[in-house]
């Protein structure tokens, strides 16, 4: 999305130095600002969402990833995060479960297709 208000530039510039006006989790740099804006628009928000809302959502997503990672580390093989652990943690949530299954299946298909394509080009 286009660089709109001054607040966006304000936050990004000051994060390198003394931190922005609105610090969520301390002075961490914003990781997903651009992508989250597009995502919020895609999910139904305005074309230019408020920066504070984007910040709140980023904090929530980072917390979600952190929680999932910690949980995954504590089950299955300890200290490591594996796909099976994530699938197990997500089993009760139908949407997320279906999505993970979809993504992994499609990834396998793509890998197979790429491999077949490469063999066709360079194989005997």
């Amino acid at each position, binding site marked *: 999305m286009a660089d709109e208000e001054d607040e966006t530039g304000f936050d990004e510039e000051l994060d390198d130095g003394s931190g922005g006006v609105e610090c969520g989790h301390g002075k961490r740099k914003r990781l997903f600002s651009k992508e989250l804006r597009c995502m919020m628009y895609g999910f*139904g928000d305005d074309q230019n969402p408020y920066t504070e809302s984007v910040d709140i959502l980023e904090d929530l997503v980072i917390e979600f990833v952190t929680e999932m990672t910690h949980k995954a580390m504590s089950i299955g093989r300890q200290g490591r995060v594996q796909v099976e652990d*994530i699938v197990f943690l997500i089993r009760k949530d139908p949407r997320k479960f279906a999505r993970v299954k979809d993504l*992994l299946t499609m990834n396998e298909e793509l890998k*197979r297709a790429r491999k077949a394509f490469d063999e066709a080009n360079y194989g005997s």
Partner: protein
Amino acid sequence: MADPARIKPETSYQSNQEVKSETAAGEDEEEGTSGEPSSKRLKVEPEKKKEKRQKVDEDEIQKMQVLVSSFSEEQLNRYEMYRRSAFPKAAIKRLIQSITGSSVSQNVVIAMSGISKVFAGEIVEEALDVCEKWGDTPPLQPKHMREAVRRLKTRDQIPNTKFKKITFH
């Protein structure tokens, strides 16, 4: 090996389906080909189910095409953002690795990015519900987001291992 054209994702929108979640995704299709007599009868049923599911998928694909072809420009824009937006894999990988301290496989990053997007979507949809209910208009304000999080917490859709609930005093 199964015909590539018949490989369909074993997605289910009901959590009651007996999908084997531990096996690799690509091997889910091979269930009926073990050759033992006891599974011969099972061979026919998964194939019938697969054909039905294939037809349902094709119907759904057609319906989606009809729907998308009738979108206005603003709707097309939004749909494109919905499909294309994604979390950067590098940042997610860095985040996970900073927590585990060891490297993670690519599949883990793919899975985590995917469910994070679904998670973000759930929050935004709930916040839009709240916004509408309170008589406000988008863009979403922080108070909508916080109320959405509060509601999702009561439905246990937000993982929280920090504050444990004490059931009995």
